């Protein structure tokens, strides 16, 4: 019997109706590296949030299943409790205060104090800070990971890579640390820094601390892990021991869904590519936070359905957002021979290019207006529809709005009490339908749709996807769809572009193999 540190048994979690974890098991020994791999939305973050007792889990009804820590059943209900057990986390976004020094950050909320007259009366929180000891201990922690910086410099002035290591130093500095979770640590690092990080992780584990490593870089995962847990759609696909597989095998496990795409009936790519080019995208750069597009070049053909796939953070979402004018962009986009201006949504919309944003609750809906208004707004703004003229001023024409809205509600099967209801009370799927209805009422020639099925139930998913296909086939609308769900892209798209590191990695046919998709999405040439 080995020294089992952590065991998670049959972990389940649902947010509202959707089940995001469906009975996941994992086991971790002291001093071991366990990697979690899976597509976005596979449930990795949720699993780690459960382990860390995050508020987002606790406040939504907790989790199902059992967590064993050193053989004891524990119910982790707050980050503080997780820290007490000896679980640390190196976050993807830095949890560092830029105006503080390295020492102050490493010792955040674990400050060492000296007692004084007042603290003896009023308790330890009035104790004076012992800068000297804090400095010294920080130095020791920094030395452990070979980070050669002075403990008294401000963190804000450091490079991204160094910040990452300060985070690690903070975890190392905790005396009782037993397990550190690394959430995509190498995403922001240079190659040299990644190398250094991998060595550091090896050293940490050699000292007996266990590591959970979350990464999309399959080569790193293969090199580092003693054990790899593959998640897909909230389910445990397989647990692999070291040396059991290579990057290709891993990619297949991540992406594959046992659906045979090799003989789906689609339109032949050759024929699509012969059609007229409606939009030429050349060297498009979009600075969307967390989803940067670095140099995207692709042609969009008349009447096709083009898909953008890729992992989160690689920039697939930035393309449509950039073209729609929502984020600062550069490069060139020509639509029907004319250059599209950047940062000017109105000009783009006037050219009949529509956009359904992935940020449904953020910029997709007016939650306190009627469904009717939500559906008609864009057509009112761009095409001046739904107004009645009274001499020299115009007033809203509620009657024609109602007719149009009712028609859309019928067509998309939006479940609501009527067109006057506010969308805040609708389910995610019905909200999404309202967003799509708005873009359709404005009757665009080209429609960009981002993540149309994220977080919605299966019924609504099918309605939306079928509707988009029908729109394409019947009205000839060119559709560009960005999605994290490869399966749905492969069922409806004519061509699929894989976006990696802000660029088009390859353009594939829906019928190409699982491995090919998986490897390309992980940035490995197939």
């Amino acid at each position, binding site marked *: 019997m080995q020294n089992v540190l952590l065991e998670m048994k049959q972990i389940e979690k649902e947010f509202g109706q959707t089940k995001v974890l469906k009975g996941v098991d994992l086991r971790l020994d002291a001093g071991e590296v366990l990697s979690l791999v899976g597509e976005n939305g596979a449930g990795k973050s949720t699993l780690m949030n459960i382990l860390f007792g995050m508020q987002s889990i606790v406040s939504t009804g907790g989790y199902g299943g059992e967590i064993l820590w050193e053989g004891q059943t524990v119910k982790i209900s707050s980050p503080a409790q997780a820290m007490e057990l000896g679980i640390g986390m190196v976050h993807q976004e830095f949890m560092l205060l830029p105006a503080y020094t390295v020492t102050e950050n490493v010792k955040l909320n674990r400050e060492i104090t000296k007692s004084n007259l007042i603290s003896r009366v009023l308790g330890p929180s009035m104790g004076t800070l012992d800068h000297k000891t804090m400095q010294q201990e920080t130095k020791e922690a920094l030395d452990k990971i070979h980070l050669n910086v002075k403990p008294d410099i401000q963190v804000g002035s450091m490079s991204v890579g160094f910040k990452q290591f300060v985070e690690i130093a903070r975890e190392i500095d905790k005396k009782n640390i037993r397990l550190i979770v690394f959430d995509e640590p190498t995403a922001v690092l240079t190659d040299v820094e990644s190398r250094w990080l991998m060595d550091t992780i090896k050293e940490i584990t050699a000292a007996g601390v266990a590591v959970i490593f979350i990464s999309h870089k399959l080569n790193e995962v293969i090199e580092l892990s003693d054990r790899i847990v593959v998640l897909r759609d909230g389910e445990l696909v397989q647990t692999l021991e070291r040396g059991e597989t290579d990057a290709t095998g891993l990619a297949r496990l991540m992406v594959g869904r046992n659906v045979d795409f090799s003989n789906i009936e689609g339109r032949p790519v050759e024929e699509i590519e012969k059609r007229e080019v409606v939009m030429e995208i050349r060297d498009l750069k979009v600075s969307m936070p967390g989803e940067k597009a670095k140099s995207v070049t692709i042609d969009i053909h008349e009447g096709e359905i083009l898909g953008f796939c890729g992992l989160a953070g690689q920039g697939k979402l930035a393309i449509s957002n950039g073209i729609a004018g*929502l984020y600062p962009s550069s490069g060139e986009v020509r639509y029907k021979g004319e250059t599209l201006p950047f940062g000017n949504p*109105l000009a783009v919309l006037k050219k009949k290019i529509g956009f359904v944003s992935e*940020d449904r609750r953020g*910029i997709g809906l*007016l939650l*306190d*207006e009627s469904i009717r208004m939500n559906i008609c*707004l864009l057509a009112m*703004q761009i095409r*001046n529809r739904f107004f009645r003229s009274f001499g020299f001023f115009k007033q809203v024409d509620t009657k024609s709005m109602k007719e149009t809205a009712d028609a859309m509600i019928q067509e998309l099967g939006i479940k609501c009490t009527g067109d006057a209801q506010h969308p805040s009370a609708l389910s995610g799927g019905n909200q999404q339908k309202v967003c799509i209805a708005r873009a359709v009422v404005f009757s665009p020639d080209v429609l960009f749709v981002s993540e149309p099925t994220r977080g919605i139930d299966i019924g609504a998913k099918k309605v939306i996807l079928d509707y988009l296909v029908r729109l394409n086939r019947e009205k000839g609308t060119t559709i560009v769809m960005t999605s994290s769900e490869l399966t749905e892209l492969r069922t409806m798209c004519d061509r699929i572009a894989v976006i990696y590191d802000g660029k088009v990695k390859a353009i594939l046919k829906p019928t190409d193999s699982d491995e090919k998709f998986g490897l390309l999405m992980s940035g490995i040439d197939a």
Partner: protein
Amino acid sequence: MKMKCRQFFEEFGVTRMIAVGFFLAIAIAVPVLHLNTLTLYSQALTRMAMNGVLVLTMVPIMVCGAGMNFALPIGIICGLIGGLISMNMNLQGFTGFFASILFSLPFSLVMGYLYGLLMNRVKGSEMMIATYVGFAVISAMCIVWLFVPIDNLVLRMQMGRGLRKDVVLTDFWAGILDDLCPVTIGGLTIPLGTFLFLFLMCFLVYLYMHSKTGIMMRAAGQNPGLAAANGINVDRMRIWGITLSTVLGAIGILVYAQSYGFMQFYESPKMMSFSAVAAVLLGGASNKRASIFNVIFGVMVFQGILTLSMPVANVLLPESNISDIVRMIISNGIILYALGKGSGKK
């Protein structure tokens, strides 16, 4: 049904319910305590009418997303300037009143525009900045009033220089709307003229809010991100809303003054915004939503309480100055409630 009731009460809010209940209680108490019911009710109606336009200023500015208009003093100052110019020219009656509105327009348009520009640069902290910009403008104007050149000696302070603190409007256009066509029903006097003017203003604002600009303004106020993505110029919409609110503020103070009988300069407009904000909130508005109904209902309840609580309290607790206390507690209580609710949603 039970759920719906509860939801309705939650929406309506405890503070608001207390206020409405309080209003009903004192409205009933007036006849019960054998006070001069008809006179008091008439007074209450007059105060509702005279404050109406000032409260109406909240509609465009809240709808366009710039929050409660704590900078109402800016609009008020523009109205005072307009009134001052017209009185300085010794214009009387309707000419004087409408000239005042006309003269105030260029000021309120320019000030509203500038104020809108400022608000666009300080998104997220509008309310606090509006309050103190309002205070600062008022105190700066105090100095201006001291030095403003005046030809009409009635306006000048008896001793020394500068404008009077309160100018009596009897010789100009006091009660010009109130007395336009007062309706008396069995001793209850309704200042129909002022009400008609208020309704006219409400109707114009209603039309505006249902035009394309109005709709887009609503979208911009509710969800700036969505508005931008749909090709709406959010900043411009906000400037429209703020300017409209400032113009209405200028008209509002003139309506107020004709009914009140005085034009008050110097520091008196300082706290007016709080009452107006409180009234619209009482009427059911929230940070980003305000309708004509909220205005009418709110001003009715709020001014009703203020007018009627004083005599009622005097019967129960002689010689106490409860009206002011009630105003302070209710108006600030409802604003705090709205602030808490507004932040809670995020």
